[in-house]
């Protein structure tokens, strides 16, 4: 009992120093009793997987938790496998999931799964990833105008590489096709890293990669960023205007959010919310966000839930416009 109290105090101090979010005065402070299963909605080595392993390492390095966090990859069916697994978790207090936008789109596209994201426990939004329009340097294209001209001339010979049908990349490609009257051909590949490589190897004409995927080729002078699907220009790619500046009101982000299993106890939810606040505020995560050009503040609890509901409505609208759902 005494040990319990000391941990409680140190948790209180830590939270007091950081952003106080979790209710510290609750008498029954919860701690994990066994290793925590940290489900990833994507395969090993992808962007989400790297982020989870990075978070796992931050927790270990800074000794933030008494029990280990074990990443478990469930990439099947665009996250359907992960969603069903977490929904039916036998021990919701020890089951977390790291989510992408497939958290919204997969239940919309596969209603048969019976997933209602409102039943999941909001733990913490760690970041919002951004998207840019990329072409290879050898193409000589430097602006969105030149891109539109070249893509128009090429018609359906213009290859846009992306990550799977109805994925974020597909949504952005659809937007560009509609907004500029283009007829680009969308060719899906497995994973954003592979997509980035196809552009650098000139097997595709353009991509809409996340900055982290294209950064290496960009720094090596192989690819160029033309425009950003964000509200403001990105600090790392100052030369790329936002599509908003160019007169097209379209912004798109990808959430990187930690979600708890449905039916997680309040004590456990408060514990994880506090823990991920600390992870978010750690120097390592802040550096990572800067380096990978990630945006967004930390969100948790009710504000995170309303963010989900708002995002789901936006995604639904986009998918309806694409004509893939009613």
């Amino acid at each position, binding site marked *: 009992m005494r040990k319990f109290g000391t941990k409680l105090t140190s948790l209180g101090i830590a939270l007091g120093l950081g952003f106080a979010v979790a209710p510290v005065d609750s008498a029954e402070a919860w701690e994990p009793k066994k290793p925590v299963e940290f489900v990833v909605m994507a395969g090993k*080595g992808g962007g989400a997987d790297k982020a989870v392993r990075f978070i796992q390492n931050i927790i270990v390095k800074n000794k933030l938790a008494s029990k280990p966090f074990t990443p478990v990859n469930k990439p*099947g069916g665009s996250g359907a496998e992960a969603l069903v697994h977490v929904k039916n978790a036998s021990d919701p207090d020890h089951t977390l999931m790291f989510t992408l936008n497939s958290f919204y789109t997969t239940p919309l596209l596969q209603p048969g799964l019976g997933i209602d994201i409102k039943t999941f426990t909001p733990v913490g939004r760690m970041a919002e990833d951004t998207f840019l329009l990329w072409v290879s340097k050898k193409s000589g294209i430097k602006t969105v105008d030149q891109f539109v001209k070249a893509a128009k001339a090429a018609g359906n010979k213009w290859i846009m590489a992306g990550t799977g049908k109805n994925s974020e990349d597909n949504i952005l490609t659809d937007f560009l096709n509609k907004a500029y009257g283009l007829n680009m051909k969308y060719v899906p590949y497995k994973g954003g890293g592979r997509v980035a490589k196809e552009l650098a190897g000139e097997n595709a004409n353009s991509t809409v990669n996340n900055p982290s995927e294209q950064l290496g080729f960009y720094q090596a002078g192989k690819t160029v960023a033309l425009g950003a699907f964000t509200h403001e220009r990105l600090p790392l790619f100052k030369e790329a205007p936002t599509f908003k500046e160019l007169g097209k009101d379209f912004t798109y982000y990808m959430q990187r959010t930690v979600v708890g299993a449905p039916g997680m106890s309040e004590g456990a939810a408060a514990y994880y919310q506090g823990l991920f606040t600390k992870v978010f505020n750690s120097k390592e995560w802040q550096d990572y966000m800067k380096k990978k050009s990630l945006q967004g503040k930390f969100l948790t609890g009710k504000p995170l839930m309303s963010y989900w509901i708002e995002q789901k409505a936006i995604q639904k609208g986009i998918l309806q416009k694409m004509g893939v759902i009613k």
Partner: protein
Amino acid sequence: MDVLPLLINGFIIAFEPLNLMLIVLGCAVGLFIGAMPGLGSVNGVAILLPMTFLVPPTGAIIFLGAIYYGAMYGGAISSIMLGIPGASTAVATTFDGRPMALQGHADKALIAAATASFVGGSVGVILFTLFAPPLAEVALTFGAPEIFSLMLMAFATFVGLGGDDIPKTLFSIFIGLVFGAVGLDIISGEPRLIFGGIPGFFHGINFLVLAIGIYGIAEMLWTIEVSQGKVMISQATVSYQRTMAALRELLTTWKTMLMGSFLGYFVGILPAAGATPGALMAYGVAKTMAKDPETYGKGNINGIVAPETANNAASTGAMLPMLTLGIPGSPTTAILLGGMVIWGLEPGPRVFTDHPDFVWGFIASLYAANLFALLINVAFIPAFIWVLRLPFTILAPIIFILCIVGGFVPTMDMHDVWLMLVFGTGGYMMRKLDYPMAPAVLAIVLGPLAEPALRQSLLISGGSFGIFFTRPFASVIMSLALFLILLPVMKIIYDRIKKPAAVK
């Protein structure tokens, strides 16, 4: 580029006491992780990643690299001793390794595997040292049409894999392709063949589940039936004379070794391929080129040498796109890549100029890891041989447990264990009916790589197959593949013309 001074500097870093200790430790740990069925280098590297904070980044990647290397050696051990592939990369090693062990040549098989691993790893590392940047450029231009041509070439070597019964071989290939098609299709965005939405099928059928089912469970059922519970494994021994004889026999396989090393390395550097297809392709090519293809699968030493040189060369090759392009060539390098990011090193086209100490220290450590893995492996061979002396009544339950663990670990899903038992029973039936199993395993590995590549190519070309003949690399590989496919057909026609009496 002046490689030598950079490499010498790298050796100085790799031979610092701490780093040297990490290499030895990593090789030993990797060897055992690789030897445990289901636990491959991916799991080993992923589990030990958080521990690398205790040492500086260069030491950390040296440690993980040594584990990776050790696991490549270790995978062969359970393939040979127990007939269960220890890791996905060692599946092809069971084809001939297991029969050799059953004939009492386990020591020869193990020595062949260790030596071949060493040769493959060395050739890989030397190629890496000399030609890293230009090869990275080649890997970069390799798109979907090239990958499909390469896969077709691998398929072409299949037909020769199943012995002479071509209809049964084709059946085996097609059933493997169907299993490989299960799961989400990235191009249409729809799940396929998930049997009305069973969640376990969403991630597709992990090919280790099929391989362990067929080679572990089915093989054991077969052994039990044939031996009627009596010990039937020939007693294996190790001695100086036998070792020397084995090494002399290995000298005759130098052609296979060279082929396996170069092919494996080349397949390894292609993003998305990795060591498993490399090893399988090397086996197929070795058999196609052999003068005595009928002895493959029955304990031909070349059948061990080809995949083992290839998987070690490929594992080195897979480091190349990881370091220079920031794209992993295999799942294990994907985790290594994640590790590098955590340590604050950004892999990519500039890593050679930005972090020379790190890159060259790492490359030098691969030379050292290769040597230590060989020494540790050879030192343990008597201990492995001892396992085979256990009575089959003890060994069989151990194999069975290892199979179950191996089926469960990669995905942590009971669904896969049941599936593996189904494959085991099915495989046993097919074995009784004399169907070749190796083509099914090859198809489930290569099918999911070949199919999207074909569809991507045709999407790019607007449906025209001309795309495979207008691109320089693709056209060369495609022509070779077509030649290999037509070769057996031409042989049959030739035989019929020459001696019509011999064919019924």
